[in-house]
């Protein structure tokens, strides 16, 4: 536990110092990694912990982004203020959408989540309720203000985004080691046994979706304020697939693994951009190849989760964890 904590502190310290040595491009790559880290961590709750195959996560990302954009452009609500609202709206969307489909298993759930994502994207393209701006999307979204300071430079976003990542990691570790986190594990391992042990599996699944959706929604709000323009093109099926890949390649269920996955999957194409310059059109070819090789050699992902152990007192004494 302590070793993990130290590594995290060191890593975040390195990230905090990175603007000293990295140029804007690499800072933006780190920002992109950070955004996807939040998205992947949020999907990890659903896919990695609860074991629910969700390949439509971009839908919740979109809900958050559009929510922030609409609140900001129509009602002038500052982005950071709208963050919790976006989370709640996305969570509500997650719970609402998943209510009727939650009993589906495995791949049936997977295709239905794909369907939900596509339906939402099509709704956005068709300018549903006249709010989403159709294929143009919404533009003129404000940059976020933090204590009266306008955030716009890459390194400023680095602190905002990675600060959010740090908070997410901290909270999700707590969540994972809580009653709720364990319930997700039981659910993934054996749904019948979990229900038979008194766990409300239906509700737990919904909560998993709601939490995952909430964080994806907040990531969407951050994305909207970073880009200042959003359009349905940013929330395609491919986006869901990308987040899905990060979770599985990183190590489904393991927070550190998922973070590493985000570095790898989002970082690698940019890496290739910088170092295979001559073969720019082969960038994605390398990427696909790397994915296959990675899965073949680390079939469980980079860092698969291990079992959770508790520090126990010597027999007869009180327990402390």
């Amino acid at each position, binding site marked *: 536990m302590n070793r993990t904590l130290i590594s995290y502190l060191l890593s975040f310290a390195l*990230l905090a110092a990175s603007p000293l*040595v990295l140029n804007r*491009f690499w800072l*933006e790559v780190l920002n992109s990694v950070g955004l996807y880290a939040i998205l992947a961590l949020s999907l990890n709750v659903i896919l990695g912990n609860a074991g629910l195959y969700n390949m439509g996560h971009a839908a919740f990302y979109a809900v958050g982004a559009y929510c922030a954009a609409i609140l900001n452009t129509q009602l002038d609500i500052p982005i950071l203020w709208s963050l919790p609202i976006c989370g709640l709206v996305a969570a509500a969307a997650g719970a609402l959408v998943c209510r009727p489909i939650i009993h589906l298993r495995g791949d049936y759930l997977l295709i239905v989540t794909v369907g939900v994502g596509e339906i939402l994207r099509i709704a956005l393209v068709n300018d549903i309720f006249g709010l989403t701006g159709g*294929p143009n*999307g919404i533009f003129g979204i404000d940059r976020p203000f933090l204590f009266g300071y306008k955030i716009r430079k890459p390194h400023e976003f680095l602190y905002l985004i990675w600060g959010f990542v740090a908070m997410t990691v901290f909270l999700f570790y707590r969540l994972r080691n809580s009653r709720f986190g364990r319930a997700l594990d039981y659910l993934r391992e054996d749904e019948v046994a979990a229900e038979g042990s008194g766990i409300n599996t239906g509700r737990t699944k919904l909560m998993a979706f709601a939490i995952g959706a909430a964080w994806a929604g907040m990531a969407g709000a951050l994305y909207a304020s970073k880009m200042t323009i959003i359009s349905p*093109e940013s929330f395609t099926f491919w986006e869901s697939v990308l987040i899905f890949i990060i979770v599985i390649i990183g190590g489904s269920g393991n927070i550190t693994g998922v973070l590493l996955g985000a570095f790898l999957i989002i*970082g690698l194409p940019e890496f290739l951009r*910088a170092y295979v310059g001559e073969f720019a059109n082969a*960038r994605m070819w390398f990427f696909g190849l790397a994915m296959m090789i990675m899965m073949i050699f680390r079939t469980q992902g980079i860092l698969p989760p291990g079992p959770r152990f508790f520090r126990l007192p010597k027999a007869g004494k009180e327990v402390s964890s």
Partner: protein
Amino acid sequence: MLRKMMFALVLLALAVTPALAAKTVKIGVMAPMTGSWASEGQEMKQIIELLAAEVNAAGGILGKKVEVVMEDDGGDPRTAALAATRLTTRDVVAVVGNYGSSITEAGQMIFDEEPLVQIANGSTAVRLTEKGLKYFLRTSPRDDEQGRVAAQTLQAKGFKKVAVLHDNTSYAKGLADETMGLLKGMGIDVVFADALTPGERDYSAILTKMKGKGPDAVLFTGYYPEAGLLLKQKKQIGWNVPFIGGDATNNPDLVKIAGKGAAEGFYFLSPPVPQDLPYPKAKKFVADYSAKYGSAPGSIWAVLSGDGFLSIVEAIKGAESTDTEKIAAFLKKKGTKINGLTGPIAFNAKGDRVGEVYKVYKVDASGAFVLQP
């Protein structure tokens, strides 16, 4: 855990790339080299590299060679924003691109804040130049201008009932909306308006439905692959109705897809293709391009990126500086006329290209695009 730190270290090490003193004038190009629009991007690259070679053969600019710096925007906004940021770290003096309004918009602010002059090619959304950005220009015309030409064409041909079909891309919908707005004022009925899904193959269901509405003509504002299929399948269901396309249908592949018989009689609007221009520069370009790559350029948008490149080259020469302010000032100055591939290029204060650009073309029985008087 160590792995993570090592990764960060490697990132750090690689990021400290040496910045050499500028021995060349670097011009950045943002283009979709991968993804669905890769064909556009790769043609942009070919055209600009050809033009750069010619500029260099003629002595370069300001005594230096021109170097083209390509950046892949992947055809999606997030990647485009990253690509734009990377371009700002590569010592370029100005940027050509992108293809696609929403892709352009993702990088627009990044270049504006840098600041760098950006000349977009395939970005027709009206709002791009309505933001008051000082350093943004485009060689492509705007949706509203094309919409005006489209509406006038429909009116001139005497159609009373028109079906409008787009593909729900930002560009096609923009054009469809502009045109429909104008048609209303002209007393022309829009009896059908809907959007197809690009990338599919079978549009018979849509054609059947449209046919049921009985329009005099169909305006399709999407791209050539779908236009070609629509023409082909329209003929198959035995529907003989005039089709009119927007400038995204200007591509020789249209006829290949539809077949000559089905493509014959198809009208489309477009800036003039280089083959049709009287200017020697255009003729030479087409000849050179064909000699180097084996066929004439297919996409008008890629050709417009060549115009963007030439504009920047001329502006640097004219301003005798690679300073962003000066380049932009030169380009927007009244009276500046650049000899481009699609004719003389001049920009207004907003950064839009001025002058009548659109022409009407018709496909003849041999599949050739014939400029209409």
